[in-house]
């Protein structure tokens, strides 16, 4: 477990950790498609110029190139925006054929939370797309900086491929210091542990869900909240059962199409089997230009929007 970061930080800042990771492993390469600052990899570029490779604005080339590096026995972290990583979806698929390799597709500026660039840069189908890619073993949507760093470290210990989604907007540490993030595991917050309503959130929606929890509480509704960042493989039945124990309504919240193969769909089969009602919070279609706060409000994904929707779900 790495040093616990107490300051507000965006998950996209995991790029700052690359220098240390590269210092510890001379086989680790970082590739980037003209987004060094957005990805926070400038430090790595300066410290290890030979192993931090600038591909230019060429995502497909970058992904097949990374496959080549991995075939040469290297570990590779592939970096670009979540929306643009999908330009190499087939290249990712093809790179998985025949041999297990350690390639981590680290995408950033995911979801409508990226804000003002508008829908052209707002990845809202990436989790589903990558979950449906046989070339990807893990799809992860970490909820805060500490979890993102820890999961990245774990991913570099395994000869597997992963898609890790990160966000531009900073968030305070949400998971407690004594929690050890692990692939496939969620965290159930202790507040209102006896409530029969739970929001399970991934990525940037955890912050909103926790705020909604407080808002609901002030109007007399107690709900539980769980963080779950592993979208693929779908968390096993035991883990889902642990998180939703004693619940009769599960609300999945994701900055993603809510029926687009993300968190909601990853949990649906297990919840269905347990006979627990599921409601979803997320996007229905394209986003638009706006501030992150403005957009979360517009699409009912901020704390107020979640609060309102939870009340609606309860009234139905």
């Amino acid at each position, binding site marked *: 477990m790495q040093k616990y970061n107490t300051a507000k930080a965006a998950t996209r800042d995991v790029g700052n950790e690359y220098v240390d990771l590269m210092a510890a492993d001379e086989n680790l390469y970082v590739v980037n498609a003209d987004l060094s600052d957005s990805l926070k990899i400038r430090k790595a570029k300066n410290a290890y110029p030979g192993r931090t490779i600038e591909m230019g604005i060429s995502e*497909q080339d*970058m992904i097949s190139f990374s496959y080549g*590096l991995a*075939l040469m026995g290297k570990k590779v972290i592939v970096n670009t925006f979540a929306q643009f990583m999908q330009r190499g979806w087939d290249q990712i698929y093809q790179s998985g054929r025949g041999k297990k390799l350690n390639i981590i597709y680290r995408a950033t500026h995911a979801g409508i939370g990226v804000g003002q660039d508008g829908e052209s840069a707002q990845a809202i189908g990436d989790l589903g797309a990558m979950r449906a890619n046989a070339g990807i073993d893990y799809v992860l949507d970490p909820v805060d900086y500490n979890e993102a760093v820890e999961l990245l470290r774990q991913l570099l210990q395994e000869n597997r491929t992963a898609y890790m989604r990160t966000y531009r907007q900073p968030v305070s540490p949400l998971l407690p210091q004594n929690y050890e993030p692990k692939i496939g595991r969620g965290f159930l917050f202790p507040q209102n542990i006896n409530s029969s309503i739970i929001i399970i959130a991934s990525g940037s929606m955890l912050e909103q869900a926790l705020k909604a929890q407080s808002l609901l509480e002030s109007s007399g509704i107690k709900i539980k909240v769980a963080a779950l960042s592993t979208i693929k493989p779908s968390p096993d039945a035991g883990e889902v059962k642990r998180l939703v124990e004693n619940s009769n309504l599960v609300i999945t919240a994701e900055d993603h199409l809510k029926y687009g193969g993300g968190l909601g769909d990853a949990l649906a089969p297990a919840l269905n089997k347990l006979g627990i009602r599921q409601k979803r919070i997320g996007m229905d279609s394209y986003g638009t230009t706006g501030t992150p706060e403005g957009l979360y409000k517009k699409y009912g994904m901020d704390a107020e929007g979640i609060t309102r929707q939870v009340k609606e779900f309860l009234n139905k």
Partner: protein
Amino acid sequence: MPTENQQKGKGREFNPHSGLPSNSSNLLIQLTEDVHTDILKMFIRFDMYNQFKGSTNCYSMQSSPVYLKRSDIKTAFENKQDAISFMKNFQNEHELLEYHQSKTTTESRNAVKYLLHLKEIAVINRINSLAQIKDAGSGHPGGSLSETEILLVLYEIMRHKPADSDWMERDRFVMSKGHATPGLYAQLAMCGYFDHVSCSFGSEILSGFDLLRTFRKDDGYLPGHVKVGVAGIDASTGSLGTGLSIANAFAYVMKKEMPEATAFVLMGDGELQEGQITEACTFSSHYNLGNVIAIIDNNGVQNDFETHMTKNINPIGDKFRAAGWEVISGGMKWEERQTPFRNGHDIVFLINALVRAKEIGREKNVPVVIVADTDKGHGVSFMVEGKGEWHGKAPNDELYDKAMAELQESLRMVRELYAKI
């Protein structure tokens, strides 16, 4: 290498594009008389892909595929390195043959023997390519037959060890046109890569050339498209346009860790329509990857139809040159393409091109592309004439027999020629 005069097209009476003597049409008319005494004329006759069109005599119909093995090779030579060094003095096969005919020396005999040895293997590889496709009932004959000599010469030049396919210091090869597997598998079998594999298939345990029978079959060893895990395969491909990016990565690492090694990639001309190749092309030159050698199997035909009719990507060499690459080509303008006698089937051209590409790349620190002009379906007349028709389907029994008859005639001819050297 060509003299200055040859480069300017002076002095010699050879068509610079086809490599044929410039009076070849007259020559061909006279063939009937002295074909069995004049080796050069015999050779020209051998090389005319359609010379054996319709030839069925002497060979019993054999619609169940027969594979040939290394033990079926009838030709031999003395010394490979000497032969390759000697070939450097010539631009193409015909020049070498002509020299040998007029001034027979020990060196020229060795070089011609080596040439004919490779020619024989090329025919065998073609037979094995079509046999796989016939056996499987599907596959890509056109591209497998156009790439035959390219692959054959490549594996002669590459630093590789079939008995130790994971040898770290080896040259790497990326088969970017990953659908043209029968040609590649035939070549890998010939190199001996499959001799060290044993694979259960139905009730049998198969190894070596027998593995060719498993192409595209349920639980077979050889998948439809190129895939890591098959002995001798360095990267999975099959979705076009990815190979150069992969070769760039190989070269990037090799440049630091194993400077002797080279990354080769074979692409089809139709494949160049993929945008990713443009992306990768710039990477190779920007990072001065003098250890990347790309070869274009420029057969001029893609799945639907001729490449220049589908979406014209010509002139290929100029595009690579503009991206900072060195270009080696036969110099033929794409508008002037005509069958047969493409440099991509000329073993002397290909050997020289590959040897030169390795030298130029390292001298100038730039990537090198070899534009090898080929016939799609080379060696089988109706496949060449069919254009796109033979991109991706198996011949029926009648056409398979017809193809085999033509190839068997080629085989007989090259052996006869060898006997006269």
